[in-house]
């Protein structure tokens, strides 16, 4: 990440949105809106004075809402560029016309309430799209009780809870009573492999759950993890060995099952009701915390971006590609990589990113554009 931020050939346009794309392969004109941060980028050093003093607290989206940030904030501590941003919707000054505390305390005089969105026009020979995914909101899947029961959380929320730099400083405390979660239930395929929600398999959740269960054990030797899965998908390099290690060294229990419902007892302990699909019997398991492996879905803004770029989406809502030209979109000169074109794990995304880079370079370097036919 640091490397990308520092590379002399990379011009970082964070907090920016692509507004329009005109032209064709070899010469696109891209209009980008650089949103106002209300902070002077060259002056701000992210010293932290402003967010120490800012009086307005809002839930931190980086921590999936567990923990608070201020109205002037850093996206995350190691973020690049390290520049504070004022969240206009939550800032007292923008809503009431009063406050400007951050301005008072900024030694660099970097706060600039008059900053405006900036329209930047770029020309580029090719475009690479790598917008990633969103996490599926499981609230409407009422059987899991997400949103209703505090101790039912999503896998990404769990990541933030257990992170040393996260809102709980790396202690696995469950949301309802801050008690250390020792018995954990991980529920796979939440919102995926289902004709009602998302038909596809997210590909990464089985391994992800295993990793989370391992972390739990590393944080607390008493932790016991149960993973409720449909088919266990561990096809990548070293993955089978990894789950074996999970079973043998970390005592993770893998239960082939279908979860019917989650209820809660008086102490707010979730109870998982499931059908053991091996013995075909209904069973239940009381746990301290439930972690839902929610589907990773196309980004909400994917259709809008597709329209701006003039590319097509597939049936699932990912950017459409042909299986044998995996990084080519339906428009010449525009390439995709990573999860935005379909489920992939990190190494596959990294490999595909290089592939998209090659295809983009090809547009500029190839003798003629027709040589793109592969």
């Amino acid at each position, binding site marked *: 990440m640091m490397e990308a931020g520092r590379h002399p050939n990379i011009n970082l346009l964070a907090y920016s949105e692509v507004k329009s794309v005109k032209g064709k392969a070899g010469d696109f004109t891209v209009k980008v809106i650089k949103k106002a941060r209300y902070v002077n980028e060259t002056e701000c050093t992210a010293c932290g004075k402003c967010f120490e003093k800012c009086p307005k607290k809002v839930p931190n989206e980086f921590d999936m809402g567990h923990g608070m940030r201020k109205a002037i904030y850093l996206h995350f501590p190691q973020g690049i560029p390290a520049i504070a941003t004022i969240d206009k919707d939550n800032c007292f000054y923008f809503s009431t016309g009063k406050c400007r505390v951050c301005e008072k305390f900024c030694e660099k005089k970097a706060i600039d309430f008059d900053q405006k969105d900036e329209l930047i026009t770029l020309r580029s020979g090719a475009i690479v799209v790598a917008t990633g995914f969103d996490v599926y909101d499981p609230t409407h899947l009422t059987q899991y009780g997400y949103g209703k029961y505090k101790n039912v959380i999503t896998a990404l929320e769990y990541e933030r809870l257990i992170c040393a730099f996260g809102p709980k400083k790396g202690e696995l405390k469950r949301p309802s009573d801050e008690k250390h979660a020792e018995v954990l239930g991980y529920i796979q395929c939440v919102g995926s*492999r289902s004709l009602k929600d998302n038909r596809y398999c997210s590909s990464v959740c089985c391994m992800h759950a295993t990793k989370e269960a391992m972390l739990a054990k590393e944080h607390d030797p008493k932790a016991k993890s149960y993973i409720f899965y449909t088919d266990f998908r561990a096809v990548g390099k070293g993955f089978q060995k990894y789950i074996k290690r999970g079973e043998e060294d970390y005592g993770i229990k893998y239960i082939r099952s279908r979860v019917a419902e989650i209820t809660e007892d008086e102490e707010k302990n979730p109870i998982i009701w499931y059908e053991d699909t091996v013995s075909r019997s209904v069973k239940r398991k009381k746990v301290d915390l439930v972690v839902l492996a929610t589907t990773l879905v196309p980004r909400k803004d994917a259709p809008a971006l597709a329209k701006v770029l003039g590319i097509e989406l597939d049936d699932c809502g990912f950017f459409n590609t042909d299986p044998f030209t995996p990084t080519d979109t339906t428009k010449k000169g525009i390439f995709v990589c990573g999860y935005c074109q379909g489920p992939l794990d*990190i190494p596959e995304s990294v490999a595909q990113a290089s592939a998209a880079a*090659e295809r983009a370079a090809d547009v500029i370097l190839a003798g003629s554009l027709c040589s793109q036919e592969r």
Partner: protein
Amino acid sequence: MNELRIGVFVCNCGTNIGGFIDVPAVAEYAKTLKGVVFAQTNLFSCSESGTTSIKEAIRENNLNRVVVAACTPLTHEPTFRAACMEEGLNQFLFEFVNIREHCSWVHMQQKELATEKAKELVRMGVARAAFLETGEMTDVDVIPSALVLGGGISGITAATALGGIGIKTILVEKEKKLGGILKDLYKLYPTGEDASKFLDKKIKSLMKFKNVEIITSTEIKTIEGYIGNYTVTVKKGEKEKEYKVGSIVLATGAVSYEPDKSKGKDFFNFDGKKIISQFQLENKLKKGAIKEKNIVMILCAGSRTPERIYCSRICCMTSIKNALLIKKANKDTEVTIVYRDLQTYGTDYEEELRKSKQAGIRFIRYNEVKPPTVDTKKKSVMVYHELLGRDIELPYDLVVLATPLVSHADVENISQKLKVPVDEHGFFLEAHVKLRPLEFATDGIFLCGCAHWPADITESISQALGAASKAAIPLLMGKVTVEPIISYVDEDKCSGCGICEENCPYGAIKKDPEKKKATVTAVICKGCGICATNCPEQAISIKHYKPEQVFAQLEAAFKEE
């Protein structure tokens, strides 16, 4: 060496440092240290105004060493090195002292002690600075051509990609024809396209490039050199030829596991006729329709077992694809798939699984503890059904075993020639499982396709394009830049024992056969220092981290005041 003129700059980092450490006191203290001729504080040393004032100070005080006490070198070392260079001071005469992460942030509640510690850290930095030496980045020229090893779909794709961006490329295939595994396949999932037609199309578009030389029936004899400058000797029959290339893409693929027929008894009674591999089925399908009425496919045959623990990734989809093709050709054929977990990950494959269930293909799960057995007398497959709690009998005319992809027999040979590692299963080991999946720790050699791990065609193509992208970087730039923080051999002390050569993880240090002394290849060396700590004669040191530089710091750390 001229008189030492050290300048010390202590950063407040807004309040990050200044809030917890008496920064002016640290700067005053620095002035008392040996060799220091100038010291000042900055609000933000890294800011535009900060670096400007550092540059002014270098100029006005004729400084020949610069010490900045601020944050972590990870973020701002390049900033300050650049400032030094702009004033004509060699960048390696700069020393960074971290008084934020190592001091103010971790001792917030102990301001006085933190200030004392900051002084000592600065003292250590100044002591080290006195021993710093200049260093130059060196550029090594690169031969602008590439070698692709292996002519399967990965190799073809990589060579086409490199050819397409105008790079002279040599594609070496040991077999007579290009195509690898694809040559023997029937139809491809998920498109249903003919493998041979697809392959022809790919080969044709590769042939278009005049800058790509394809040599088949050829093996690699030797590979010598390093990034930018490899000499490859190939052997075709008795003829040998030498090529010079700048980077190498390894795409040697894998093979389908074929059990030994004589040992078939231990392997589901495999006989290659009625009990065949999925790979053999592809061949059979290629030749014509399947006549057998009852077909049972057994998945994970030879994989996910104690001796071959891995999942071969592609067998589930291959089986489902072939089952669908059989069913499509004749809907009366009974196809049963006996499986452990169905690996139909992603979007398209899950859809294929759904289709196959609709087409009437039967799926029965088995447990690894009680794997299915093939009874050749009764002509049935016995599967322990977990729910029923007993064996069920599946009559067969044909049993198809989904065997895994395994590494080539000559992987060891390639691995030794290229000096790149393989894992316990014979797949090549990349530099970093997640962040550098297509690279080796050795610069200039890249990896894609099934040589890395079983991959389907889509994944192989992605990886091949990616590897081509990586391999093209040094070739397009025409040079590689080498930092001078590398190992250095004092030939007077070197006894030529060769211990450094044995232990270097990069193969960067070698005993010169004539001089009988260790010599370092700068481009390969990463400066890890293993050679230095292992050298029995203490003849090797790492530039910029020489013992006297470290000792200076150690002395300063415990100097009595």
